[in-house]
């Protein structure tokens, strides 16, 4: 919302020497956020009113003229101009060198310089209204029309800001900061707040009174939605421009002046915050009725939209049907037209939430509806009507009031609140005197009665529509008037009840740090919704997957039951830039089942778990390496992150996995996740071109953190240990797990064996078909002595013999 400070000053006497920066700051701290306080005249720096003395044809350009312009003090300058309405004696806006304009009202601001135009020296620029930001205040009838200021009776050389009454400060207020304050949506409301902040006198707006007696009436058939309707019927009006001062103020507040009748209604709304509306009385058949719309009823709005109404909409009607969408927008039929001579002025109060529903339903949020939906108090109608009539009478001296009614069906109850002063002091953390408290509240319009510890507060009408309703609201009023910054920060005391130990939180953090820092994976975040492409490719079924009713895009309605579809999308997106990378994500997944709530018996929430998923993608590593990297990350995770060990089993192939390369992860008998190579078909459907991708996904909810860090200390070997590599041929189907078991299992091949580790595996040339060569590193040593080479050889020999016997292995001869 934009406010003119000079307009505010109509209602509150702000001292001339008041620091406006401080005013903006104080309002921001105590009431609403002032986003900007603009010294409006600065926009017109370097601009003056010039009088055209002579208009001559430009020697080198058909479309240009050379004007001799009086720029004050009898000084005549040449200015080249392409305007089509230039004439001698005309007053124009001249931008002198240094002024800032926008060419044709568009693009970046340009600083005017003295320059030659087609060979003729030009002092500055004669401006069109839009070039100096006044397109809305002085709309041009056609292109290249110069702003004609001949109506402004000022001498040549007058600064433009003075001539056009632009010596003003525009306060730009963040609307979001006052959604809870319906009383502030106009100049008068802010003036009242300033008066309270600085203890300045506020100008009272006198209620309108009339003794006209007629049968003019307004019926309210929907008292739940319309608390009050004031109507004034008058004749002797016509469509004409409103006075410049009114136009100027409407423009400063960010609206467009239209004509006097419409301008008065907008002006009053901008002043009081209460929307008003004028109907052409000659087009109202019989009398006005405020009622709910009939289902399916039609209404053609001012903006030419035809609505099919619902019963929930509130309409202003005459005997023929709806003439306006109450509190939102007028209808086309009864709007002000050039022929209008009689009007009915509406100053009404409509219920907030209904207005909001209607405005939203037809996507028609207007200045009026956005004010009504904040809940305006019905008492304000008096001020709005008083101000309206003041201007109607001023602009139309011939005006006659022919009818008046004030249908006030639901009086507003002022909010009554009891506040304990002890409570107030405790919550404020500061002791204020009763006089201080009372003073601050009374300035805001509250009535305060103190009786012992109890303070009985009656809120003013303009704060009684929901804004102020409990004692905490009263406390806030006292605190903000005192100034939040004037309260010292009070420290909270620490009570030592033992260290905080949240193992589950620590585990997730350990896992993330393990994957990132130790395993070189990059953490990513993706959205909870999945694109259908990846759902179809990776999950291949949407059974049990939850859906959004208004998704971000039609093909992104499913919300994830697995992290893998979005991880695959992330892999696909990164393939353009990287050929070897690993990513992971830890996030929540959702399942359409097991509805339950631990918090409220009426509530039922779907099953929600947390998963951790990862992808290792490479086009430079072979699949064997990629597989072992991924598996290594998972294999060592429990030890590094201090959780119970899980096991790899091969029970159930994940749908997205290659038919051979996959494993399931088990914690005891519970399956907790999968890993595997993304099947070629799946990666093609994901748009992945050259990368091989190893995926894994674990249910972190099922992981079990250990009670504390676990490491086992073993004494350092007293005698040297030796690594001894053996390579043997095995049947291709032999698995490492079995080989290890034969060597290191319950009956170790030799007492001197300390460990056996997989080194690598080889098939191909020199290896007979159906066989593979496995290289195994044996660690051999004794706790009692240094072994001789014969003893070492013989230990290795025992291992080989056992493998030969038990696994049909052969010593590799080559």
């Amino acid at each position, binding site marked *: 919302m934009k406010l003119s400070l000079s307009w505010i000053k109509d209602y509150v006497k702000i001292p001339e020497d008041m620091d406006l920066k401080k005013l903006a700051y104080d309002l921001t701290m*105590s009431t609403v956020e002032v986003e900007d306080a603009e010294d409006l005249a600065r926009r017109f720096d370097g601009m003056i009113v010039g009088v055209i003395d002579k208009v001559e044809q430009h020697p080198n350009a058909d479309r240009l003229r050379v004007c001799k312009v009086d720029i004050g003090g009898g000084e005549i300058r040449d200015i080249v101009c392409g305007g089509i309405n230039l004439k001698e004696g005309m007053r124009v806006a001249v931008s002198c060198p240094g002024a800032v304009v926008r060419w044709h009202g568009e693009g970046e601001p340009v600083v005017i310089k003295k320059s030659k135009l087609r060979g003729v020296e030009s002092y500055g620029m004669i401006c069109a209204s839009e070039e100096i930001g006044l397109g809305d205040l002085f709309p041009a009838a056609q292109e290249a029309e110069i702003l004609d200021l001949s109506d402004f009776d000022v001498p040549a050389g007058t600064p433009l800001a003075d001539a056009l009454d632009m010596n003003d400060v525009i306060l730009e207020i963040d609307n979001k900061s006052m959604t809870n304050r319906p009383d502030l949506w106009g100049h008068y409301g802010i003036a009242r707040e300033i008066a309270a902040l600085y203890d300045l006198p506020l100008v009272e707006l006198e209620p309108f009174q009339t003794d006209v007696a007629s049968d003019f009436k307004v019926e309210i058939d929907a008292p739940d939605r319309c608390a009050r309707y004031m109507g004034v019927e008058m004749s002797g009006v016509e469509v004409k421009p409103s006075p410049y001062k009114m136009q100027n103020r409407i423009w400063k507040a960010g609206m467009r002046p239209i004509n006097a009748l419409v301008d008065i209604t907008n002006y009053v709304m901008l002043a009081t915050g209460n929307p008003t509306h004028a109907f052409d009385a000659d087009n109202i058949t019989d009398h006005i009725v405020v009622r709910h719309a009939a289902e399916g009823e039609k209404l053609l709005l001012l903006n030419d939209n035809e609505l099919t109404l619902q019963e929930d909409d509130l309409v202003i009607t005459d005997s023929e049907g709806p003439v306006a969408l109450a509190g939102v927008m007028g209808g086309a039929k009864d709007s002000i037209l050039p022929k209008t001579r009689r009007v009915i002025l509406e100053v009404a109060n409509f219920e907030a939430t209904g207005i909001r529903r209607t405005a*939203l339903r037809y996507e028609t949020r207007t200045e009026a509806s956005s004010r009504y939906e904040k809940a305006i108090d019905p008492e304000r109608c008096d001020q709005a009507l008083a101000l309206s009539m003041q201007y109607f009478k001023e602009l139309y001296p011939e005006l006659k009031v022919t009818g008046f009614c004030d249908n006030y069906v639901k009086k507003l109850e002022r909010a009554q609140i009891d506040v304990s002063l002890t409570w107030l002091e405790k919550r404020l953390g500061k002791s204020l005197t009763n006089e201080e408290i009372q003073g601050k509240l009374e300035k805001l319009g509250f009535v305060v009665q103190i009786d012992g510890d109890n303070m009985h507060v009656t809120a003013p009408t303009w704060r009684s529509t929901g804004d102020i309703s409990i004692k*905490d609201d009263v406390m806030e009023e006292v605190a903000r008037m005192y100034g939040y910054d004037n309260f010292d920060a009070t420290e909270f005391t620490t009570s030592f009840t033992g260290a905080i130990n949240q193992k589950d939180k620590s585990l997730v953090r350990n896992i993330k740090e393990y994957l990132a820092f130790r395993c070189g994976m*990059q953490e990513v975040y993706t959205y909870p919704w999945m694109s259908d492409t990846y759902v179809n490719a990776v999950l291949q079924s949407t059974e049990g997957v939850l859906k959004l009713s208004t998704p971000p895009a039609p093909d992104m309605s499913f*919300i994830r039951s697995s992290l893998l579809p979005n991880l695959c999308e992330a892999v696909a997106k*990164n393939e353009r830039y990287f050929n070897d990378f690993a990513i992971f994500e830890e996030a929540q997944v959702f399942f359409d089942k097991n509805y339950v709530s631990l918090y409220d018996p009426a509530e039922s929430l779907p099953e929600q778990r947390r998963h951790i998923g990862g992808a290792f993608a490479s086009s430079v590593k072979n699949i064997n390496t990629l597989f072992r990297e991924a598996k290594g990350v998972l294999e060592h995770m429990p030890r590094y992150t201090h959780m119970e060990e899980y096991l790899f089993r091969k029970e159930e192939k994940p749908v997205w996995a290659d038919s051979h390369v996959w494993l399931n992860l088990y914690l005891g008998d519970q399956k907790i996740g999968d890993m595997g190579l993304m099947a070629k078909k799946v990666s093609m459907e994901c748009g992945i071109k050259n990368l091989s991708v190893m995926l894994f996904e674990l249910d972190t909810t099922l992981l079990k953190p250990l009670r504390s860090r676990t490491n086992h200390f073993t004494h350092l070997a007293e005698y040297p240990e030796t690594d001894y590599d053996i390579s043997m041929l095995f049947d291709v189907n032999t698995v490492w797990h079995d080989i290890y078991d034969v060597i290191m299992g319950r009956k170790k091949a030799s007492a001197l064996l300390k460990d056996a580790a997989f080194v690598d595996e080889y098939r191909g040339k020199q290896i007979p078909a159906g066989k593979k060569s496995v290289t195994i590193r044996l660690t051999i040593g004794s706790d009692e002595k240094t072994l001789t080479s014969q003893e070492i050889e013989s230990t290795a020999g025992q291992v080989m013999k056992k493998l030969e016997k038990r696994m049909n292995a052969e010593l590799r001869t080559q």
Partner: protein
Amino acid sequence: MKDKINSMLAEAKNKIHEAASENELQNMKSAYIGKQGALSLLMKEIPALSVSLRPEMGKLLNQAKNEVKELIDKKRVELKLKASEVPPDFDCSVPGILPSQGALHPITQMCYDLNDTFRSMGFEIFEEDEITSELYAFDKLNFPPNHPARESMDTYWLEGHDSGATSEKLCLRPHLTGGSVRYMQTHKPPYRFVYPGRVYRNETTDAHHERAFFQYEALIVDKDITFTSGKVMIKSILSKVFGTDVPVRMRSGFFPFVEPGFEIDMQCQVCGGKGCSVCKHVGWIEVMPGGSPHPNVLRAAGLDPDEYTGFYVNIGLDRLVMMRYGVDDVRLFHSADLRFLKQFR
């Protein structure tokens, strides 16, 4: 002979002293004390000397030979210590090899930094599920029944669960505060916890607006808390994030679930409060809402608002990270674009 020995010894000493390589030393060794070395050859001349001189000269010569040998050995060690294993053109300006390249998401980094700070002040870390009911997303937080945030243009409702009683209507949580009520319902006061998490709003995205973003809520509830206790919490957060003491101010603000409510601003860290384009020339930047939980919210959590009160702040982590690093598009956080994420270590 004595002179010969002495001059030879002096010459050898000199040469050894100046020797620059192992090779030179080796040559010198054979030149003086090798089988054909100068000193060794002198030895052969001894028998030709008079008998009375022989013992003295023999002794002298042996001493000289020993001295040369010692000097060469000493010099050899000296050279070894001086020597390098690499050629002299070794280029030390070649960059090092990057260690393992993984990193946490910048939001996670910020979140963990804050967790550490709050844990040091005795706060617990709390997490809750992302799908919630309208009951907890709005009713319990004192949102009026017709509040605009409840509409589908603001909140993501779930298909098949988007009508009926508020306890049956399900949505992706639009903020964390409803979860805080769940915490309070299941724990005994006083409370001191932080609650990081992702929230969702149905809106059109651009560089400053996202459908999914991260919040960090901190709540403290106790019997004797004034609404200004929150300042300590706020200062702790900002000094952790920015590494210095950042001036903050609290000003009037409105949110349904707090009373009184504040907008909390911090001094613009770009201009130091003087005013610049980043802070729109006001010197302050809005960073978080805060306030005392509304009595209705405490009631919803089963507490007596006459007895308990508290302070709450809710920080937008995305915004904080953007300010910290100058990130200009909020959508990058969910892009999973490694070119972006790799910049944060």
